[in-house]
């Protein structure tokens, strides 16, 4: 019997380690109810009581050997199978990604947001107003009485004698000053209209951000300081500003403001036409007639106002060379920003 047990063990060992062993079949063959080892163990009843413990031990050893091997090999097979399966599941990760569809904001909107954020950071509010506006708010209240050359219909779209498409967002400033007493700190972004034919640098509709600050003791230095913060925020912290005297009916003194070229830092390049400076803003100290018209005493209060074209800034920032692109809304254009 001992020989038979050892023979079984040897047989089983060979069978188990054969290349294509069917582990379940072998388990049944050796360990099953009708298995070979079971058959041997069953025959142990014929042994003498002295022999039985030794044979029993040997039989157990063989059984546990076979059992152990089957378990071990099963795990090994499974691990290999899993590995093979994973290997088969390999993807060509260099294939193009499936991008989720996303859209995006218009470059003008992005530029406007950038500007708004700078002023919001300085405690300004954003105020909207009507685009179809009364002559009073667009002109008269801004110290442009009837007959003023800037009111010429060749510049402004009229609806009636008294109603027009605003040519600037300044009317919002007047409406604000009528409603609210100083301190006032607002910007008014929005669409404005001038009757210019469409070309690479003109459009009958464009966008502006105008700003207004009114309080006691507001100085021209404050105007310069505020615009410097704005210019640095918009064009980079190295930006410098340059004021040039100018004339606007609603401010006095008035200035045009250049910023140092953000492409070349002021050394002169194509963007700044070798000037080192780029004109971007108009501004000035609010004219006393404008304050008075809003029932704000110019002897007590002073203020400044400024305006900047969003198209101009967007075109400068993104190096867009034709204004028409902004209104064509070609996806090949919009998806660049």
């Amino acid at each position, binding site marked *: 019997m001992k020989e038979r047990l050892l023979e079984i063990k040897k047989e089983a060992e060979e069978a188990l380690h054969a290349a294509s062993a069917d582990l379940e079949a072998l388990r049944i063959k050796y360990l099953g109810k009708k298995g070979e080892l079971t058959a041997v163990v069953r025959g142990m009843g014929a042994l003498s009581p002295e022999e039985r413990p030794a044979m029993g031990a040997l039989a157990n050893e063989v059984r546990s050997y076979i059992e152990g091997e089957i378990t071990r090999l099963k795990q090994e097979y499974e691990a290999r199978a899993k590995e093979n399966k994973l290997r088969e599941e390999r993807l060509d990760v260099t294939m193009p990604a499936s991008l989720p569809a996303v*859209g995006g904001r218009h470059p003008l909107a992005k530029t406007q947001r950038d500007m708004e954020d700078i002023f919001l950071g300085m*405690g300004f*509010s954003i105020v909207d107003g009507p685009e179809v506006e009364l002559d009073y708010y667009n002109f008269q209240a801004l110290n442009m009485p009837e007959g003023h050359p800037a009111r010429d219909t060749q510049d402004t779209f009229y609806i009636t004698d008294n109603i027009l498409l605003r040519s600037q967002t300044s009317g919002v400033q007047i409406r604000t000053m009528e409603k609210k007493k100083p301190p006032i700190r607002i910007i008014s972004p929005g669409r404005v209209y001038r009757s210019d034919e469409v070309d690479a640098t003109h459009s009958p509709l464009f966008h502006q951000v105008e700003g207004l600050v009114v309080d006691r*003791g*507001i100085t021209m230095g404050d105007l310069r300081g505020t615009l410097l913060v704005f210019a640095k925020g918009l064009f980079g912290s190295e930006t410098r500003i340059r004021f040039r005297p100018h*004339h606007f009916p609603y401010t006095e003194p008035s200035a045009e403001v250049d910023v140092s070229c953000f492409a070349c830092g002021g050394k002169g390049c194509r963007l700044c036409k070798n000037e080192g400076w780029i004109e971007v803003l108009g501004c000035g100290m609010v004219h006393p007639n404008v304050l008075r018209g809003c029932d704000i005493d110019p002897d007590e209060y002073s203020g400044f106002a400024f305006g900047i074209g969003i198209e101009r800034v967007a075109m400068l920032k993104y190096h867009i060379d034709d204004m028409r692109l902004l209104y064509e809304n070609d996806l090949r254009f919009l998806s660049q920003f």
Partner: protein
Amino acid sequence: MKLSYRWCEDFTKVSDIDPKHFADRMTDTGSKVECFETLAADIENVVVAKILKIEPHPDSDHLLICQMDCGEGSPRQIITGAQNVFEGAIVPAAKAPASLPGGVKIKSGKLRGLPSDGMLCSIGELGLTSHDMPGNDNSGICILGEEFADKVGVDIREALLLSDVVFDYEITPNRPDCLSVIGLAKEAAVTFDRPYHIPEPKDEKVGDGDDVSNYIRVDIEAPDLCPRYCAKAVKNVKIAPSPLWMRMRLRALGVRPINNIVDITNYVMLEYGQPMHAFDYKCLDGAHIHVRRAHDGELYRSLDINAEDTPLTSSMLVIADDNKPVALAGVMGGANSEITENTATVIFESANFEGVSVRRTAKAMGIRTESSGRFEKGMDPENAMPALMRACELVRLLGAGDVVDGVIDEYPGRRPVRTVKFEPDRINAFLGVHLSREYMEETLRKLSFGVEGDTVTVPSWRGDVECMNDLAEEVIRMYGYNEVETTLPTIKMAEGGRTPRQDFDEKLHSLLCGMGLWEAATFSFIGPRSYDAIRLPADSPKRNSVVIRNPLGEDTSVMRTTALPSILEVLEHNKNHKNESAAMYEIATVYIPTSPDTLPNEKRALFIASYGVGDFYKMKGIAERVLMFAGIKGYKTKTVTDDPSYHPGRCAALTLGEETLAVLGELHPDVAAAYGLTGSVLAAEIDIDRVFELRDTHHEFRHLPKYPSTYRDFSFVCSEELEAGKIEDVCTEAGGKLVESAVVFDVYRGIQIGVGKKSVSIRVTLRAEDRTLTDEEADKTTEKMLRALSDKLRIALRDR
């Protein structure tokens, strides 16, 4: 307005200053230089020369061999093809190597085998015209005349006074006084702190007993439009070209020389800024000049070459004799009194006209002249007389005629001298600087202001200076805008930041972009035909738009009441440019008219449109997402069959109660076709103003469900006509509060279902808050649903 160094020199010495520096500093002090040009800079090595000898070229029948005295000691041989040369002629000669305008280089060379050391020049080759050099034209060599005989060898730029630097200024409308050489010369002098002197033109009496009153008298019949009218008479006029120096000064400032009398009026206008008019005395009917409003329909023909008889209106001011207008006041002279070669007696007019009236007249007549451009901005009446005297001085200087004694000066509109309170402390506080009172006084005085104690007297030509701010500007522009230290306002804290609506819009933009939509920016005005393109019926209230009175064109003539055409044009553009698909949106302002005298309602609406991507349900999903984003609950989908812009079978409205918040669907194929689009084009319009108002962004936490849900799937066969939404609604209603959701998840059509029928599968999810539902409970609920479906919709479970 232009300024040349040569002319400026008459009043102040600045021509030693580098032109770039000059331009920059003038810009800094408020006279913006747009650009400057060094005249004749491209002419090199061209001199005045005398033709000593002319021989025919042996190998040519038209070339001439000239021996030239170019002031070099020995003659220079130059071969020319021009036939107007003669021995002894004084001509401009380019000595090789030489340069001419337009980058032309003259080198030594051989012409038909014989050497030629340069070129004889025509006026054109020197960049001149026959107006600049009367008696010459481009067909031959420029003949300079005997007065240049002593200039042989002299550089032609000096001999013809060509070299100069010309600055082109952008003068702001508040400074019409700077539309003059004198005005700019003064600004330049103060800018560079140099002295200036403006000579006073002298009026020399002849004493021959003749007087202007023997010629004309003037009546200002419309003093509101003509504050002042000055005039002088000149007799024995000899019309001739004006001298070289005057021609070249006019040329440098961009004015074409004509003849001595016309040139004098132009010269004075440029020098003094005062528009002048000269008319032929013999053309006047009677001796009486009336400055009056035109009669309605009265005909007038300007002296412009192409002018025709044009009817006038009574709002226009004319200068008239007893019978007819001879000039449109301040705009242009009339053809009937123009200076001609035969003019013997001239009346010089130097007047002041009211700006608004001149501007309106010029605009109505479609004539804009140097004169009208100046009067529009408001001229100084005080300037009229000195300018007139200067014109007469020039007449004497040029020998153009005999100035008649006496002057006409009708001055009904004399203005009081203006004073402004001088408040140095306030100016400092206002500007944020610390300038001394003395500095301010000195600066103002240099700029011709009078300062007497606390009173500043404003010069007559500075109508723009009215208050403290204006004085502050005068001081600071000379001190330097950029010298003002930058500070930040010290201001009380105030509520800043975005309003709830602005914040809502910003977040909505993010949502829309995140759903794959691109923001478009389109014009607010459209053409009425766009309403046809989107099939609005003739009586649609949406066609009632705010109309622009002076539009650029028909297609931009009304303010849109819908941005659907705008967004479809965007699709059209993208389609035309071969973009495979496009999904666009715009939060657009639309303009809803109220009454003719009041402002329209400006509403914001969201417009979405796409082609080549997604389907109806995707667009519905986008619209629903917008409502969900706003926290709007309980909205319903309604079938819309009568929206003219949409496919009658593929259009829906999202409604809340009776109110429509969104309309969406596939475009009507005719609308798509109008924009060159085919296939499924989708669009949605969402009333964002209402969505904002109805928004519910209050989020209250609800406990997560403690008990599991269970679901049942059912399939029904029903008529095609039955809407899935109805089945959902009936289930939800019948199932009561246990129904968590009832959603159609599949629709199947096929032969086995039958024609005109469909199989609809719905999943009903049930949950109780306080317990796990038993199968019994679930079945009971679904039984109720099935019964309701059978009763209300006459549908039953599909046979298994």
